[in-house]
């Protein structure tokens, strides 16, 4: 505020003058300062300050002059026109608000000597608008919600004009009055006193600390002066009057998940620890021993809430907070009626609130048209559980507008539904469901349905089901009634059939079906059979009997239980009826003469109600000369038969079939096909793959049946289960002739497409594991597609070679098993003859030459090798006394001792065994026991002959335990000239029956290396010792037929003492054998088999 001051100059100052400008300025400043000093000292009023709190009066104040006493009276005049003055003993005065513009105001202290009057200029702009101090009418608190309620008067009546007011409210906490909140609150002044209300919710429970509150305000109006805030109102406070108990606040509060909350503990003793659940929390100290904890973003609580615990030295205090959610909007709200008496509304609560018990969501279902409502006070429901409420229907009201309101301590939500209840009918389950017969094809159904359905029609569905068929639903509309029984007829049923009935209902304006009623089984009554049985006939092989077959009627044609059949036979001459044939017999045999008459056979089925129409069939068979047996193969247990249309066939075609392997008559089943058909599919569970069936297609004419086609076929072809039996008919040095037999049909399991013949070189042991399907180049294969071929000659073979022959049959179903045998071709005889004659000729030539030479040089040889020896007896010097050998004891010299002969003469007895020829030698000892015991699947034929073997054992207990037997085997070669194909097992020769050469003693043969020492001991004690170690003998004789048997440990060839050897002993008169050109005899043996001289 600017104050313009003026004063009256003292007279002594006016008299002073100066001349220079500079001087004047200095003087002026000096004078001013002096005047100022005078004014202070002498006292002139100034610093006038004016304020207003209502814009109507100004409160102007000034500073009292120095030295002015308390009782100074001031005269304040407003020098306006008219001028008006006021007197005041104070230094302020209230004056009416002045008009805009400058106003001169004089303040003159009266009766005070020496004080001058002050003149001041004041303008409205210099006036401050300071509202009067507000006063709080009331401050209260709701401790349960920690809310403060403030009430005050704005005293708006003192302002004539409308003005905006800003209220500032400050909240202070604790005794130290810490400012915790300052808020502004806008109102308007409307010329009247208005009481304002304001509330504030504290985060800290009000019980735990004293809360203070004060207000001030600011008037925002059109006032040119300075506007200021009012002074603060007197502070009001709210405090809790604690009882003697320690407590924790808030108690059992329900809050939204994720929000913040402060808990406090009013305690008389020091709190040591605070925790929420398991989590410890830092303490916030309040007044005294009170403490608080602040929880941020609280998580959802368990059903029993979240525990907050404060622990003191002697006590444990706590509270429970329930953090949850407001109710979700009720979902899937649907309303329907079961009986048009009460409406059932169902809904899903949606998201769980996590609040249970008293905090659980409660629902209120209200109907807006009627204003009625029902309440649902929650049962405890888990998530996704459906709630429901019953609302009683109102008379004559069909449209309902429902509002479902859900609320809990954290909030509320609602769903609405507008529904025409007559379109929402879901009746109760029909009860008292019954079935009664009308006739064999119709029944009546009755049921009871509770409810008032008089205003609607009911749509009911009857489910009709019979055995082995799908359920047939039939819809029926009936007029609704009130809690009534309903009755409908169901027709078009089959006689003598078990039906299962059940029923459910809805309204004609379909909403939902009711639940199905209980099922009722019902057997309809019988009716006469609708058709005669399906009939066929077969003549016996002698043509004297006709066997009539018929199939049992299906249940839908029998219309009851078939009790018997009547069969009759009629011809032009007579009609013959058989006696009644009781079910279940389905054939009859009639003695008729096939060549005498044609007959019509009639079969009638009878049940308890009546007889079926007769089923007739002609007995005559029309011959067909152009009949060929065809082949067919089916697929997946079915076979398709087709034929060309034949206009001569006036009635049905008949296809009959049978299993070829079964005995006569050939009839497994038959099927009748309409005469306009040209194909049929024969399908039967009795068909088996790999079984040959015979199908016959008959055409039906008026006078009888004609066989049109005869077909053999398989539903599915399989591979043969056996191999063809084959034998070797002939063998030469370069070829083999093989012959085989047919495979029986039942083992063929398909149409035979050919044979595969394999052959390769090989002997039994080496080739038994070889696989012919591996495509090896040394296997030769011949595919015989001509199934009538039964022999095969294999040429270009090698002589004296073992071949393995394999034969397999195949069908379109696959390759059958194989059968094999081994055959050895004969040796080439020309080479053998050359091999014998050349050495003989050479030997003769050498002998002749040697004889000639010896003859010519006989004298020289005698002189050289056999000179004449002088007779010592003729020497005198050597004369001895006689009888020196007769026991004289006198010494003798050069006396030869003739008394101890030292040589052994071996006499060999020639055997009278037959001539021996051989192509292969098999020693029973050379056969390993394991091999001999193996059962060979193949027929291993070895063309050989083993003569009887004579075996002699020399008792030698020491050697018996360590060695094997020693044998010399004589093999008759002569038998080899007769090739034989024998199974392997037949080639085993019993060594016990062998006979022939007998060695003088047995030579022990060592089987184990560890027994060498025993053998040496044995050698020392044995009388005869071979010249060489037996083990060092060469076991392989290059010209031995069994030279390939290198594994044998007990066979020895070429031994000089004939021990353990296998030799051919050629009788002296071999050349006399009628078949001496056989193989198996080697030239080397000729020399080796000489006696060991």
């Amino acid at each position: 505020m600017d104050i313009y001051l003026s004063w009256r100059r003292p007279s002594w100052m006016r008299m002073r003058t100066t001349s220079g400008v500079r001087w004047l300025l200095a003087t002026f400043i000096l004078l001013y300062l002096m005047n100022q000093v005078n004014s202070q000292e002498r006292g002139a009023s100034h610093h006038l300050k004016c304020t207003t709190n209502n814009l109507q009066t100004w409160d102007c104040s000034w500073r009292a002059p120095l030295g002015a006493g308390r009782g100074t009276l001031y005269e304040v005049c407003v020098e306006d026109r008219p001028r008006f003055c006021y007197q005041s003993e104070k230094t302020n005065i209230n004056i009416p608000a002045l008009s805009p513009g400058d106003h001169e105001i004089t303040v003159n202290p009266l009766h005070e000597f020496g004080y001058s009057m002050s003149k001041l200029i004041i303008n409205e702009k210099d006036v401050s608008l300071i509202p009067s101090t507000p006063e709080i009418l009331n401050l209260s608190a709701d401790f349960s919600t920690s809310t403060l309620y403030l009430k005050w008067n704005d005293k708006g009546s003192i302002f004539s004009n409308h003005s905006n007011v800003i209220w500032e409210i400050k909240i202070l906490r604790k005794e130290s009055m810490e400012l915790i909140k300052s808020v502004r609150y806008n109102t308007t002044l409307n010329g009247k006193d208005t009481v304002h209300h304001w509330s504030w919710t504290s985060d800290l429970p009000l019980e735990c600390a004293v809360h203070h509150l004060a207000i001030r305000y600011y008037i925002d109006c059109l006032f040119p002066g300075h506007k200021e805030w009012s002074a603060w109102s007197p502070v009001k406070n709210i405090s809790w009057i604690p009882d003697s108990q320690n407590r924790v606040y808030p108690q059992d509060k329900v809050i939204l998940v994720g929000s913040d909350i402060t808990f406090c503990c009013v305690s008389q003793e020091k709190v040591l620890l605070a925790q929420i659940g398991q989590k410890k929390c830092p303490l916030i100290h309040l007044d005294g021993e009170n403490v608080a904890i602040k929880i941020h973003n609280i998580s959802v609580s368990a059903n029993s809430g979240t525990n907050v615990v404060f622990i003191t030295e002697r006590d444990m205090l706590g509270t429970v907070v329930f953090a949850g959610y407001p109710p979700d909007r009720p979902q899937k709200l649907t309303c329907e009626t079961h009986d048009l008496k009460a409406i059932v509304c169902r809904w899903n609560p949606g998201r769980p609130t996590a609040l249970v018990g008293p905090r659980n969501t409660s629902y209120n279902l209200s109907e807006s048209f009627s204003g009625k409502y029902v309440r649902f006070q929650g049962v405890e429901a888990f998530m996704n559980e459906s709630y429901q409420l019953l609302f009683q229907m109102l008379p004559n009201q069909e449209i309902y507008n429902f509002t479902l309101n859900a609320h809990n301590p954290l909030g509320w939500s609602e769903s609405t539904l507008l529904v025409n209840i007559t379109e929402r009918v879901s009746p109760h389950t029909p009860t008292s469901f019954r079935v009664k017969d009308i006739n064999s094809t119709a029944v009546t159904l009755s049921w009871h349905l509770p409810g008032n359905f008089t205003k609607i029609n009911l749509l009911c569905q009857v489910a009709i089901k019979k055995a082995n068929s799908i359920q047939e639903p039939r819809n029926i509309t009936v007029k609704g009634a009130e809690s009534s029984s309903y009755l409908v007829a169901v027709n078009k049923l089959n006689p003598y059939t078990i039906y299962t009935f059940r029923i459910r209902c809805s309204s004609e304006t379909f909403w939902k079906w009711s639940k199905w009623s209980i099922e009722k089984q019902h057997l309809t009554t019988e009716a006469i059979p609708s058709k005669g049985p399906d009939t066929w006939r077969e003549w016996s092989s002698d043509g004297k009997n006709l066997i009539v077959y018929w199939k049992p009627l299906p249940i839908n044609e029998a219309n009851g239980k078939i009790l018997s059949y009547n069969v009759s036979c009629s011809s032009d001459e007579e009609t013959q009826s058989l006696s009644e044939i009781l079910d279940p017999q389905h054939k009859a045999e009639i003695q008729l003469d096939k060549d005498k008459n044609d007959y019509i056979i009639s079969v009638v089925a009878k049940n308890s109600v009546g007889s079926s129409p007769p089923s007739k069939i002609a007995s005559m068979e029309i011959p067909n000369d152009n009949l060929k047996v065809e082949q067919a193969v089916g697929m997946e247990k079915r076979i398709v038969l087709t034929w060309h249309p034949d206009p001569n066939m006036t009635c049905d075609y008949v296809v009959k079939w049978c299993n070829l392997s079964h005995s006569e008559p050939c009839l497994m089943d038959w099927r009748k096909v309409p005469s306009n058909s040209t194909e049929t599919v024969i399908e039967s569970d009795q068909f088996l793959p790999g079984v040959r069936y015979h199908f016959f297609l008959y055409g039906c004419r008026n006078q009888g049946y004609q066989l049109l086609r005869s077909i053999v076929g398989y539903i599915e072809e399989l591979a043969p289960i056996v191999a063809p039996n084959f034998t070797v008919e002939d063998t030469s040095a370069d070829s083999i002739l093989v012959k085989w037999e047919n495979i029986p049909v039942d083992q063929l399991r398909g149409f035979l497409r050919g044979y595969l013949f394999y052959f390769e070189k090989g002997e039994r042991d080496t080739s038994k594991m070889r696989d012919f399907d591996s495509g090896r180049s040394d296997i030769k294969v011949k595919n015989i597609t001509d199934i009538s071929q039964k022999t095969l000659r294999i040429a270009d073979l090698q002589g004296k070679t073992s071949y393995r022959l394999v034969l397999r049959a195949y069908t379109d179903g696959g390759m059958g098993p194989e059968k094999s045998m081994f055959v050895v071709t004969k040796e080439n005889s020309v080479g053998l003859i050359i091999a014998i004659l050349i050495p003989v000729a050479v030997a003769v030539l050498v002998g002749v030459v040697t004889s000639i030479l010896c003859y010519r040089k006989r004298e020289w040889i005698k002189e050289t090798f056999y000179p004449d020896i002088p007779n010592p007896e003729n020497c005198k010097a050597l004369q001895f006394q006689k009888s020196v050998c007769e026991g004289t004891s006198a010494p003798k010299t050069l006396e030869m001792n003739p008394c101890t002969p030292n040589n052994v003469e071996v006499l060999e007895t020639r055997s009278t065994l037959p001539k021996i020829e051989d192509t292969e030698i098999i020693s029973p000892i050379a056969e390993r026991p394991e091999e001999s015991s193996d059962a060979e699947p193949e027929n291993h034929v070895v063309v050989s002959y083993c003569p009887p073997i004579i075996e002699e054992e020399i008792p030698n207990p020491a050697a018996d335990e360590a060695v094997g037997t020693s044998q010399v085997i004589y093999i008759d070669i002569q038998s080899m000239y007769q090739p034989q194909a024998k199974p392997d097992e037949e080639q085993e020769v019993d060594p016990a029956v062998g006979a022939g050469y007998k060695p003088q003693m047995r030579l022990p043969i060592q089987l184990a290396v560890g027994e060498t020492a025993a053998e040496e001991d044995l050698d020392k004690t044995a009388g005869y010792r071979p010249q060489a170690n037996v083990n060092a003998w060469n076991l392989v004789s290059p010209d031995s037929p069994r030279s390939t048997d290198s594994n044998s440990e007990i066979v020895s060839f070429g031994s000089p003492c004939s021990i353990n050897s296998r030799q051919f002993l050629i009788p002296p008169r071999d050349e006399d054998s009628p078949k001496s050109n056989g193989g198996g005899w080697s030239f080397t043996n000729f020399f080796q088999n000489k006696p060991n001289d």
Partner: protein
Amino acid sequence: MLNSTNSHRKDPQADSSVSLLPHLEAKIRQTHSLARLLTKYAEQLLQEYVQHQGDPFGQPGFSPPRLPVAGLSAPGPSHAGLPVPERLRLDAAALAALAALLELVRRRQAELNPRAPRLLRRLEDAGRQARALGAALDTVLAALGAAARGPRPEPPAPAAAGAFPAKLLGLRVCGLLRDWVSRTEGDLGQLVPGGPG
């Protein structure tokens, strides 16, 4: 086993080593067996109760002060010197009070844990069982000639305003049930032939 005459039974407080009639002996055995069974049930109830109160209930070291329960005191060591019938009389009174308190606890738990049917069923059963055991004790006392002294007053309902004090009260009541049933078993054991008495 107590071997004495009927005259001794008229003054059961004088000596517990009195002879009992066979039917009384059977009743004592039966009641003792019941008490032993209820001791096990009370322990199970306590465990079940703790499980449903949330943390820190059930945590190791959580031991709220044993606040006094209106109308029911804890079995104290001062009772040790009392004669067996007097101790049984105290047991019967405590069991009667416990039956009422258990019903109060069940009601509060029905609000806090309405979805814990097993706990609520156990609380309900425990109240009935405590009442049954108390009645059996009364029968034994009457047979011993030491009938209970007049009708027992219903214990005042404890002021458990908040959920937390209610939880603490329930915990305390369940603990007292276990303690009193166990003590009843021990007291009856002194009367059972072959028992410690």
